[in-house]
Structure formats: C-alpha cells, structure tokens
C-alpha cells in the first residue's frame, strides 16, 4: 500500500508518494518513483499494482502540454484500457487481480489549482477534490513540505500497523506544483528512531 496524496491550495499544491514496493506482503528491495509530471505542469501519483503505477507515470508524461481539462478527458479511457490489459495478463498467468488502482492528478484549471482523483473502484470517473490521502489518516492537511513529511509518516505508521509491519516507505518524493513550474525533492521517509516510534 502506497503512502501518497495531494493537497491543492490557493496558489500552489503539494503531491507526494513513497517509493516502497511489496511482493507477497513483504517490502521489496527495489523502490519505485511514483510521482509523475507532465510538460504541461500536471503532476500525478498512483497507488496499486506497481506495473499499473508505472503505466500511469508513462501516461502522464505522455500527456505533453495537455491542460488539466484535456488530461481529465483522456486519462479515464487510458486507465481503463491499462487495467483491462493487466487483468488479462493476470488471468493468463493465473494470478489474482485486485481492483485497487487509484490515481491523483493536480494542475491548473482556469488559473485555479485543482485536484482530481481517478479510482478504479469508481470506474475511473474523475472526482474533484482539494485534498486526497491514501491511506486516509485524517488530521490537518499539510501546508508546508515538512508537514507533508509528517502526514506521510502518519500514513506509513498506519500501513505498518494494519498491513505491512516491515514497511519503511523508502524514499518520499514531494512535488510542489505552481503556475509556472513543478519542483520536487526526494527524501528518506523514516530514519532511525522514527521507525521504532
């Protein structure tokens, strides 16, 4: 389970995601980059099968200079197709397919910062949201990058308590999206005593 989310504010937005991958309920050694950005200053993060998350990254990067409206119009069909292919692949190899892909997208729409969530469980119908947390741990929404880290650590503690006790989150990528560009930083999600807490 990925610790990810976004918060769209007046002026800019933060979007974040950890880099942990799981195999048979255990964290893998390889990490994955989950925050994707397009040349059109859209940023997205996805949670679900790692192959589908990777597909989302490529889809978002391939949006080119498309606006948020254009992305919302195009992404659902692409996401449905990607999931259908993954489902067929799982069927072919006899693996179980879980409906759990969710994708958060932020960008400018009519000069306003907006966020949209596409969930596989809802047929990838775009749902507008000013904030999205996966898993949803509640609490105050972050207003700075340091607060984003605190929220991501709360999410990871939730994942460790409920799903994977050995989860470390690996690298947290935080991106800040504005009118003229996207900046991002990758930092360790938990260090030393933070894991024991």
């Amino acid at each position: 389970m990925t610790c990810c989310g976004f918060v769209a504010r007046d002026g800019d937005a933060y979007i974040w995601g950890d880099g942990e991958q799981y195999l048979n309920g255990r964290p893998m050694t390889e990490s994955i980059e989950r925050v994707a950005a397009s040349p059109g200053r859209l940023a997205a993060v996805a949670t679900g099968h790692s192959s589908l998350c990777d597909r989302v990254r490529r889809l978002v990067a391939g949006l080119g200079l498309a606006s948020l409206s254009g992305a919302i119009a195009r992404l659902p069909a692409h996401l449905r197709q990607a999931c259908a292919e993954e489902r067929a692949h799982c069927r072919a190899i006899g693996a179980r397919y879980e409906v759990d892909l969710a994708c958060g997208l932020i960008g400018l729409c009519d000069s306003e910062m907006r966020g949209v969530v596409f969930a596989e469980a809802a047929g990838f119908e775009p749902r507008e949201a000013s904030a999205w947390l996966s898993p949803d741990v509640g609490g105050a929404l972050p207003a700075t990058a340091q607060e984003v880290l605190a929220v991501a650590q709360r999410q990871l503690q939730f994942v460790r308590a409920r799903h994977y006790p050995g989860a470390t989150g690996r690298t947290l990528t935080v991106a800040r999206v504005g009118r003229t560009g996207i900046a991002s930083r990758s930092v360790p999600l938990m260090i030393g005593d933070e894991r024991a807490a």
Partner: protein
Amino acid sequence: MSVGFDPIEVEPNGKGGYNFNKWELLELSIVSVPANPGATVFARAFGKDGRVLAAAHADTLVRAHRRIGAARQDLADVLQAAGHPPGDDGDGYDPEAEELSFDAARIKRARAAALLSLDCVHVGPAAKPSAPPRELRGGSWLTAHVREQEAARLRKFWSLPV
C-alpha cells in the same frame, strides 16, 4: 583534519574573526589534502604539550588509528566469546549505535533542509479560486466543464460550427 560543525554561540573576536563559544560537531575526519596549507598535525596522545608531526608522520597517525580499530575488534571478539552480546563492551557504550544515531541526526538535518528548500523555490502563484467555492460545485461540475471544453476544442480543431 576536516571539521564540520553547526555554530550555536558566536561572537566577534576583535581581530576580524569570530570565536565559536558553543557549537555542535557534525563531522570529523582525517583528510590527505588540508584546506589550510599551513595546517599541522599534533600528536596529543604522546605528550602533554603535544608534538608537531611532519607530513610524513601523518601516515603514522593513520596506522595508529587502524591499530586502534583492530584492537577494538579483538576486544569485541573476546567479549563475544565470553558471552557478551555484540556491541557490548562492558560499560554499556555501543559505538555502532552511537554512529548510527549520529548518521540519523545528520540525515534528518539534510532532509529538513531539502524540504525547506522546496517551500522556498519559486513555482509561480496560481490565481485565487473564483466564486463560488469549488466545494459547492461538487465533483460533477468538473466533469461537465471538461466535456464542454473538450467538445469546444474538437469543434475548433475540425472547424465545425458552434
């Protein structure tokens, strides 16, 4: 010798420099090329007043440092054979644990600095949301809005009448 530290209390010394009265040590290591060409190495361990070492004697210091490391390892082996767990040298001091916590503190500082720099980077402010607030418009508004925009874009692309 390379020393990295965070100053906590600093005052001018009247000679054009500063006295660092309180500081926190971040990094201390022996380097082959000093930043200050006039730097000298004192062997404090061999005499009360110290002795200036020539550059050739720096190797002696490095060898001594390695021998200390080897002696620590021998001691750890003896203690382990006597039933003490690894890292326990009898007085409760665990150098590996201290090194790990030291690294953790340093990484936390670097992480905080990276996140602070993200807040400071200029990404261009977006316009304030227009009225009514987006929450009142609901999720369906954006979908309808997008469909209208895409339809308009396609009409324009195919030069169809509006």
